[in-house]
């Protein structure tokens, strides 16, 4: 099972893509692919921020005496 990527991971990847593109030494095909990936990451980030409500989970002790 792969762990779902954290918001922070997504944002970090987005920033890395931006930095690579800004350096300006990316072949054009790669640049387009990177841009698409960047847009995807942006949308995913926004989706995670919007419309979310705080989830609360109560972790119950496994030992009833606790």
């Amino acid at each position: 099972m792969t762990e779902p990527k954290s918001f922070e991971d997504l944002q970090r990847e987005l920033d890395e893509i931006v930095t690579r593109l800004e350096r300006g030494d990316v072949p054009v095909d790669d640049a387009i692919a990177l841009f698409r990936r960047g847009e995807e990451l942006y949308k995913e980030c926004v989706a995670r921020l919007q419309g979310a409500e705080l989830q609360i989970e109560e972790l119950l002790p496994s030992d009833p005496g606790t």
Partner: protein
Amino acid sequence: MPKVEHLVYGDRKVFTVSAFNRGIGMHLGKLPPVWVEGEVTELRRNDAWATVFLTLKDPKTGATLSVTIARRVYDRLELDLSEGATVHVAGRAEMYELKGELGFRATTIERIGLGDHLLALEQLKRQLAAEGLFAAERKRRLPRVPRAIGILTGADAAARGDLVATIGARFPATKVVIRETRVQGRGAASRIVGALAALAAHPEVDVIVLARGGGSFEDLLPFSDEAVVRAVAGSRVPVVSAVGHEQDTPLCDLAADARAATPTAAGTLVVPDLGELAASVGASRRRLGLAVRAQLERDRNKLARQGERLRTAPRLLLERRRAALDHSGARLQTLSPLATLGRGYAIVRSGGDALRSAAAVQTGDPVDIQLAAGSLGARVDEVRP
């Protein structure tokens, strides 16, 4: 000892309430003086009163005992008692005859535990510090955006409520995992260790907050327990300690990756502000668009330059070739024997070969003389080698 009066109704012996109470009181008075240990829960002292009243509580069962002591005695002890302090009280059981209530008349009070606790705590602190458990370089950065926040809390609705409310207000796009456990009294330390491990084992929990409101020195002791402090320092995920009030420094505060004075402060430490985060993501996207456009522009310009070079290349090549050819032609020209003949030289051949030596022919031999224009047939008249 005076006898307790009683009334007689036929064969029935009857005591008045005061007589009964006095009688019990006299019996109690015969018991030997004892020491009683308990926690001070209520303390009433007034300069106008001759007596100081306090209630002792058994921390394990909650049983209570009313204690009185002469104010002048109490003041001389200079105990500086506060609620929650553990004390030893010396004295005797006493009956409050007017109310029929059992009390304890103290002759002296000694504060206990605190000194020992403080000493032990100081030693533990030194030992753990020597091991480097509190070192700044051990502190981990808190995740900027945790997937889930583990909250370890007692049955302390206020601390928990403040923390959850702060997290929800700043960053609702997250999750809190709450583990309630006993945080004070006997067995609290091992339960805190267990709850910490349970939270750290949760697959999404990226940071844990110890949320415990204020309490007496003794109440907060589990958060200075060696096992708890080691568990905090060794936790798989970073830990924020929000234990007690500003003035309290339980050892887990020192071992934790971050310390918060209040649950609200802890909330602002563990999640970012949604607005700020959205703005930062938006900025990244704008830079992404600008960067890819700039990249494409650069590529387009490069392509244009290459096209230009491609179109001009054949003409340049041709010109270079022509120039080279002209040069070769000129050189060829200077080497041509025809050009030499033009200047008045002649070539003399005998039998097809050009003559280089007079000795190669004899008088009378036919020779052929080539001039710039035409040739002559001739014979040798004389040889002068």
